């Protein structure tokens, strides 16, 4: 832990010094909610309903896109070389990838909470009678995204390759999960297939909490995601190679 804290602190600071990542997780995500919500407003009873739908689905999209934050934090060109010094030190080992994963989680989670508050205050998006439960359930989604990104780097040994592959995977899961349009509208088979996407599980749980004050999906989704995170963490430990930094 003594070794871990300085590395973690440095990783968090580096992320908050990265204007591109901050913009991607706030301005870009917020802009997307505004534009898609406004454009699709006619498809809903009210424009505010469109904002409600896209604020939730695009927040879930943002949490899963945390995979790209993690790949950036893990192996981005400018920080790869100083990270090599961490590998050289006695602290170099599991602390390296674990720190990147958790720092990316803290970064994404903080920015998405800000985005959530802005959506609530500026667009009138509601998060149910228990917004705290909503925020708590975002945590495993955020951690799943960053664990996926870290796992991708450990397995693929390259930031560029991991980012490319994971952005495709996340986009596919999001389209399948109903981020941009409801899969139920496309009929029975598509709706059934969409249940395979964890994005759909989170979307459904968040909509139930926000619109119906229904918390019944909270624990199944929370625990299911925790198991997936544990699998990814074990995978990172297994596949991480210090020579990937050379």
């Amino acid at each position, binding site marked *: 832990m003594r070794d871990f804290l*300085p590395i973690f602190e440095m990783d968090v600071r580096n992320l908050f010094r990265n204007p591109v990542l901050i913009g991607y997780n706030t301005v870009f995500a917020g802009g997307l909610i505004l534009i898609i919500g406004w454009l699709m407003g006619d498809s809903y009873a009210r424009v505010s309903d469109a904002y409600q739908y896209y604020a939730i689905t695009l927040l879930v999209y943002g949490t899963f896109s945390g995979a790209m934050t993690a790949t950036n934090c893990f192996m981005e060109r400018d920080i790869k070389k100083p990270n090599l010094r961490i590998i050289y030190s006695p602290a170099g080992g599991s602390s390296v990838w674990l720190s990147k994963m958790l720092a990316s989680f803290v970064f994404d989670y903080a920015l998405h909470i800000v985005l959530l508050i802005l959506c609530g205050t500026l667009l009138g998006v509601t998060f149910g009678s228990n917004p705290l439960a909503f925020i708590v359930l975002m945590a495993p989604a955020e951690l799943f995204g960053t664990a996926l990104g870290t796992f991708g780097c450990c397995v693929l040994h390259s930031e560029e390759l991991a980012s490319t592959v994971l952005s495709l995977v996340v986009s596919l899961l999001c389209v399948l999960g109903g981020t941009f349009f409801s899969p139920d509208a496309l009929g029975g088979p598509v709706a059934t297939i969409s249940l395979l996407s964890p994005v759909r599980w989170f979307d459904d749980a968040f909509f139930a909490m926000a619109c119906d004050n229904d918390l019944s999906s909270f624990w199944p989704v929370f625990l299911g995601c925790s198991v997936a995170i544990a699998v990814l963490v074990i995978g990172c430990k297994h596949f991480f190679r210090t*020579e990937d930094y050379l």
Partner: protein
Amino acid sequence: MESLLSVRGLTKSFKGNQVLCGIGFDVIPGEVLCILGPNGAGKSTTINILTATLAADKGEIRFGGKPITDNLRAYKQQLGIVPQDIALYEELSAERNLRFFASLYGLRGSRLDAAVEEALAFAELVDRRHDQVKTFSGGMKRRLNIACAIAHHPTLVIMDEPTVGIDPQRRNHILESILRLRDGGTTVIYTTHYMEEVGAISSRIIVLDHGAIIAEGTKESLKESIASERHCLVEVDVPETTSDDTTVLRSVRESLFSVDGVKSVSIEGATIDVTSVAGIENVDGIVSAIVGQGLPIKNMTSVPVSLEMVFLKLTGRKLRD
């Protein structure tokens, strides 16, 4: 004297291409051991294995008599590593970089403060301590790169071509700092393909080529190993009226080979390099052989044995080929 670091049978292949072929060597406490070799000789692979960043296929490394795998953490605590590339956070100040990297070695509080001050002084960056690294010149970054590796007072400093891409003046500054480290009792392993650096700082030299150690010893002993030869450089005046320079020079070569003790002759432009067996007085014969072919001699010098010659002799090629 007992070795600080002992390497035995280090072997490494990448995709079937053998990069290290069972190399072994010892590092004596307080010495500067230079690993010399051309690009692709296996220097960086050796360093990466010594720093425990890359796993060897076979072989053993012992530090202080114990296998490093027994307590990798304790081994790493004793190491200071200067990588070939600048490994610094560009957005942070010099002091912040030093503070962070030194803290990874367990330094805290007043010990950390003192270590950072000392490292800043070593790198001569005290007055630029608060400036972002990205505002530094190449030489300043190189100095800080070294300072970050030594702030925690390691027993063994491993430097992988730390002077690549910097001008000779700044290179000398870095070489002086390495000698200061040595004088302070630190052991240094230094890889390079600059012969003059080896000449300036080495206590001992390992010549690595194609993944194998082809020679090992002090500067003097390596030179001694080829002291059985003597080089004579002769600058001739090739007359403008000579219709066929090649024919003349070929005749000169043949005449020189008939001189007692001459082992080899190489001709580059108007300069003839004659290698003879040491101890045989054949200068008169060499002069006669050249003048006899109608070529006046402009200048003639006997060349002392250099490390460059040693390398050429050992590998059959120049270091930067």
